[in-house]
């Protein structure tokens, strides 16, 4: 059973907010006791997903959480927006797929940098992406 120990919800409206999300995720990862490589991985994943929320979702929120599952502890990030949604999630997860400014590595890259990855999206309603990285 997953238990949420701590949760902090932040707005993503500007590119400065994306930087603030990275910093907040870094603090959370340090607090949980991640080593430097694990910190860097979750911070990088958060940057990709926060930018997606801003650029494609038209802004939204992220919940930054400390989660416990038995003896394991980790960081969970839930990004939500009320944007246009993703018509073809499978395609959006493919490397090289990009409808905007990145390299098309955003979603797929964030997935590779996480231990758990879930995405729900509905056209016209928005997108919700949840990732977990467990402490190594």
């Amino acid at each position, binding site marked *: 059973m997953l238990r949420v120990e701590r949760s902090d919800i932040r707005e993503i409206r500007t590119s400065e907010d994306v930087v603030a999300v*990275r910093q907040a995720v870094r603090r959370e990862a340090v607090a949980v006791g991640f080593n*430097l490589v694990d910190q*860097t991985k979750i911070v990088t994943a958060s940057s990709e997903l926060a930018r997606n929320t801003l650029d494609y979702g038209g802004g939204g929120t992220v919940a930054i959480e400390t989660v416990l599952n038995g003896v394991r502890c980790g960081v969970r990030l839930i990004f939500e927006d009320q944007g246009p949604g993703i018509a073809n999630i499978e395609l959006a997860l493919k*490397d090289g797929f990009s409808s905007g400014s990145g*390299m*098309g590595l955003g979603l797929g*890259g964030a997935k590779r940098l996480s231990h758990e990855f879930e995405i729900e999206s509905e056209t016209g309603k928005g997108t919700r992406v949840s990732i977990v990285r467990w402490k190594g």
Partner: protein
Amino acid sequence: MDRIPILKMGEYLLVTIQADMHDRLAMTLQDDLTEQIVKHRARGVLIDISALEMVDSFIGRMLGNIAGMARLLDAETVVVGMQPSVAITLVELGLSLKGIRTALDVEKGMEGLRLALGNGNAAG
């Protein structure tokens, strides 16, 4: 508006990227650098990313763009000081920064630029 300072040293331009660079700042740097390369007839660009605690696909793309545009303007680019944790993460992200010359530190980067520009024996 914020800008990342670009220093001129002989025929080289030096840029140190701060830790918390947001996307607009990165775009501005790209534009500023291309302008400065032409203005100063620079032959080499050295970008120090040792303060960066992460490089995501956007920053990766920016570095690639800078190297590509510089090359078209007859200048070589070298990216120096990447932290090991950043390199590990970049590869897992799927980004190997192909086509970008890298070096471990500023000194090695300058050496690489001199060699690339064919004046490896020149003083200073």
